[in-house]
């Protein structure tokens, strides 16, 4: 039978295939103790981690943009009245 780390690595790869990067990250963390010396594993895990950090940063930008747009819309509305 597969051990838990093997299953987690497999799940991580499947999550990457489905572009579910958060789930992949959780699975990579679970598999890490067994694969920490596997260069391919570490490369994939760190790339995924970086991608999530970039996505978080982008989400902040996009939220800021929404706030600006709402303020602008509100301004227009008062002008129209």
């Amino acid at each position, binding site marked *: *039978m*597969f051990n838990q780390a093997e*299953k987690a690595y497999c799940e991580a*790869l*499947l999550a990457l*295939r489905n572009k579910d990067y958060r789930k992949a990250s959780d699975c990579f963390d679970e598999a890490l103790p067994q694969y920490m010396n596997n260069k391919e594993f570490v490369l*994939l895990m760190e790339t995924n981690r970086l*991608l999530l950090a970039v996505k978080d940063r*982008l989400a902040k*930008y996009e939220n800021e943009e929404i706030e600006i747009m709402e303020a602008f819309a509100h301004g227009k509305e008062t002008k129209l009245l």
Partner: protein
Amino acid sequence: MSEYFTLKSLEGLLEEFLAGVVKVKQNRLSVLDGINRLDDISRMSSDGHNINEAIGEWFAEHNQWLDKSVLKDIEIGRIGNLLENISFGISKDKISTPEKRKLASEIDRWNNLAEKTPKKVVLKRHGETTENPAANTITMYDNHLERALNLFKDKAGDKKHILSVLDDSLKSAFTQKNKDALLLSGYIIYYLKLDGYLVDPYVKRLKEAEQMLKGKKADV
């Protein structure tokens, strides 16, 4: 906003890289996924759950593996072990039903595959190569001629006289310590000399460029 666009670009790049890795591993990943699911079924079987439907679906989905040679020996061995465990779970229940008999026959079919696959040791070594210095020098000279011709075409592009090309080539040989330019300059000088040109000043510059090149080699 430039940081935003940089991040967007990086996001695309990283996603593309991960998708590329997954694509390369696609075949093995589907095998791994199948074995992982069989492993889950085997665990359910050990825990006393009814796995007839799950294992039936697994066979239906993965029977194609029997016809195509997609499995490695180690994977066949793993599947064999998992099926053995599942088979043990099914046979614990003494009541025989058509469904169970069908599953048992499927498991036998898969186990036959495992038995047919001989355990073998493969020793690999690289093919023998013999050093052929003569062939290497011919290839190297051929490559040089190609580079020199390209260099000549580059330099001749906007010039009206061969002496201008020679002047430019000598400059490259001297300032960039470019061996191809040095040799190209030598050819042009010899060509001009045979046609009666006075080439002494160019020969002097050629020697200076040669000294520069030797100096570079000495530095290395």
